[in-house]
């Protein structure tokens, strides 16, 4: 089992260090937090552009990819990290993940070299980098990508769902992709440059390493390559998006679409709102109700009634919301809704078999143990905890799940309050009832 260590570095950054020789590839990750007007989609465009396209030393995607291949790196993937654009505390960061095969090549130094070029140069000399053509191309890429949410019923229904539930929250991104798509094309290079100078590489960063190199070696490499961020921590720049509150009456929305298949997306909040201590019970509820192929919804609505192919729940415990989603023919909407209601009621009334309880525990414990076989998943879990998600460490979580009873799950189900019933009715399968 791992022995992770959180190291505070002299340059005010934090290193998650995991020494392990179990894996053939090493993982190195860096998170560069940025705040300020982060909720503006333009700030994301700036990050996206800088990381994916342009630095002085690696001027194009091709050069970066060539550097990666020469390093025996399986992936060097710069991304915009949406840690918190919706979940948790609103912490927003640019992230670069690197999986490398340590084969004698100086992978760590090479990766840090790439990181340095990508992450830090813009702060110091952004003018020379933001060429108009690249900016426009990046913004158009993002414009198309954001508009793409309307291309399939499963993504369109999510966009519409979130835009309803989060309409009063000025910070969120979800549910606004289609709106932001238009805004992107109004952005110019100087705006992005200004944003980056003020925000990128200013706040203390987070590094994570998972591999066989020693802590001293990793620390030395980081400190010799990466400059010290000179700005304040400014955690208050990361707004709290945590909780979606209960409403007195659920909203009912039915819209039609040009697609064949219909989609249901129902949102439920919990009352009282979820806390860290509720985590084991609510995970069990999610698993039993719709989180697996043996869940009540899958078994009853799909397998027994044959009403759909795709049905399940997704849980965002930090946001106090549980979602039920289903893709089906329009003529089956009424029967499916009835089935969903019945299964929630049965769970709340304690109709939970011993087999369902055992299966949910086994499934969740398996999932938690599987974190130890994946450096990426393990680091994600630990980073969420570090950034404020009130969850216990993996062994404690496994213990809490093992001790959860049918009564705990039923009590959690009784806290469910409907928040939004959203139906996107397609053309196939007759009229919705």
């Amino acid at each position, binding site marked *: 089992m791992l022995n992770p260590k959180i190291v505070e570095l002299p340059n005010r950054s934090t290193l998650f260090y995991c020494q392990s020789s179990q894996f*053939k590839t090493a993982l190195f990750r860096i998170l560069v937090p940025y705040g300020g007007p982060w909720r503006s989609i333009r700030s994301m465009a700036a990050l996206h552009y800088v990381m994916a396209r342009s630095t002085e030393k690696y001027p194009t995607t091709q050069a970066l990819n060539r550097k990666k*291949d020469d390093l025996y790196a*399986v992936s060097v993937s710069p991304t915009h990290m949406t840690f918190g654009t919706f979940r948790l505390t609103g912490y927003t960061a640019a992230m670069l993940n690197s999986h490398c095969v340590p084969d004698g090549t100086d992978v760590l130094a090479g990766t840090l070299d790439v990181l340095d070029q990508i992450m830090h140069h813009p702060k110091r000399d952004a003018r020379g980098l933001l060429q108009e053509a690249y900016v426009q191309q990046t913004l158009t890429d993002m414009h198309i990508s954001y508009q793409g949410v309307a291309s*399939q019923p499963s993504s369109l229904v999510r966009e519409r769902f979130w835009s309803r539930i989060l309409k009063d929250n000025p910070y969120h991104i979800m549910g606004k992709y289609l709106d932001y798509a238009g805004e992107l094309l109004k952005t110019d290079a100087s705006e992005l440059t200004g944003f980056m100078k003020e925000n990128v590489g200013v706040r203390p960063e987070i590094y994570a390493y998972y591999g066989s190199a020693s802590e001293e070696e990793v620390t030395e490499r980081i400190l010799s390559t990466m400059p010290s961020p000179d700005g304040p921590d400014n955690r208050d720049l990361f707004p709290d998006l945590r909780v979606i509150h209960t409403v007195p009456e659920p909203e009912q929305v039915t819209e039609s679409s040009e697609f064949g*298949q219909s989609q249901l997306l129902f949102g439920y909040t919990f009352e009282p709102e979820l806390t860290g201590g509720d985590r084991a019970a609510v995970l069990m509820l999610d698993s039993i109700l719709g989180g697996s*192929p043996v869940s009540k919804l899958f078994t009853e609505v799909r397998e027994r009634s044959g009403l759909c192919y795709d049905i399940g729940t997704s849980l965002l415990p930090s946001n106090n919301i549980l979602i039920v989603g289903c893709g089906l*023919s329009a003529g089956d909407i009424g029967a499916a809704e009835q089935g969903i209601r019945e299964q929630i009621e049965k769970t709340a009334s304690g109709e939970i078999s011993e087999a369902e309880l055992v299966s949910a525990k086994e499934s969740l414990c398996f*999932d938690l143990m599987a974190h130890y076989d994946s450096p990426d998943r393990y680091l994600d879990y630990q980073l969420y905890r570090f950034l404020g998600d009130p969850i216990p460490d993996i062994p404690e979580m496994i213990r809490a799940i093992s001790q959860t009873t049918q009564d705990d799950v039923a009590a959690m189900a009784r806290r469910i309050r409907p928040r939004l019933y959203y139906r996107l009715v*397609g053309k196939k399968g007759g009229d919705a009832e």
Partner: protein
Amino acid sequence: MSGQKKTFSSSARKIRKKVIRDPSIDESYIRIEHPCGLLIQISQKPFQTCCATLRVLFGEMHTQYRLKGRNTVHSIPRGTAHFLEHKMFEDENGNDLFNAFAENGGDANAYTGWEETTYYFSCVSRFRENLRILLSMVATPSFTEESVEREKGIIREELSSYLDDPWNAAFVSVKRNLYRKLNIRFDLGGSERTIRHITPACLKRVHRLFYRPSNMVLGICGNPGQVNVEEVIRLVDEVFGTERTPGEYAEPVIPKEPADILRKASAVRGPVPAPYLYFGLKYTSRPSMSREKRLRDSLVMDIAEDCLFSGSSDLQNDLLENRLIQGTLNDSSVFSKAYGLLTVSACTGQPEEVLHRILDTVKKALEEGFEAEEVARNRKAAIASVIQSFDTSEGVAEMMAKYGNPRCTVFDMLRVYAGVTPEECLRVLKGTVDRNRYTSVRLLPSGEPQPES
């Protein structure tokens, strides 16, 4: 690179086993030819999770077959392989076997491909119990009229979701333009019409003929505390028997696909935000090629394709620099016994120019070959990708089930990649590609006028 191989005997009787090693990456696995015909490959590694993958060499392409020694060709409805996969998770009492896995901490699933169907599970404990469920369910499935009819409703919804995917529609259109006979020109899973003809009798027959142990490979990866080689052999004994069972044997009949293509261009519409170009190249089919040669050539083609179309290729850079595409160029390929296909797609407002540059890239490679530096770099990337596959139990189990050829092992992949030269890339490319056998499909936003073709 493949290390020492040795044969030793099981405790009870002679079973052919070999330990296959690669000291250069410190990996090994055991290859077992079980007397019932099942090939078992086991890698013991210190993961928390254990994984077993059972690969059945029967897929959606196989809609015609001939009984061994007979001439009559029998047909089965399109969608049968996928239907079987769905129904395999139900026992004779109508119980859902996902429950059985879940009660034992197993997380199971399956998927159907054109040439195979794959069943798998992962767990952290009770590996033996989960393996028993997996083997038993594929050995003794149950098909009742009622359950088969109910499953049709579920599969209809699944197929309906594919129809709502515009990118899938464009991909299918590429295949329809290139292929006249092979089933791959349709959506995987059949259609509402074809699955209507699937009956319990049809499923039983197909299962009996194709779900034979000798038509399967079992790949396993897990820690030695859970995965015991002798226990696995005993379980296979119990479920499949200790020797090959007599009975009818069938072989799939793959229609002979003409070398030429059906049409050079077409267009489809969908709710996409911008126009896309899909390019498809029909590879020369060589069904008589030996398995080892085909595997080797497919690995060489991986490198050649990466040189031409990957993120580090000159073509992709050229298209981005000249603002001819948005996002990136995406490529994928198949190089199997039955068919070979390359697809390249991109979001572009200038499809003719992009198509021209793709064709020009292929032409240049065929005439001038590959640069050594380019091949060396893509070789490194390919090797790194294989090595990373050894970092998860699922990845290793999948490799164990996929690479069952004794003369081309999992480790030979690394050896082949390491030895790929520019000359070899050119040789395989020339043997595979006729640059006139291509098609292009334009995926247009709904409402945009149809281009003149």
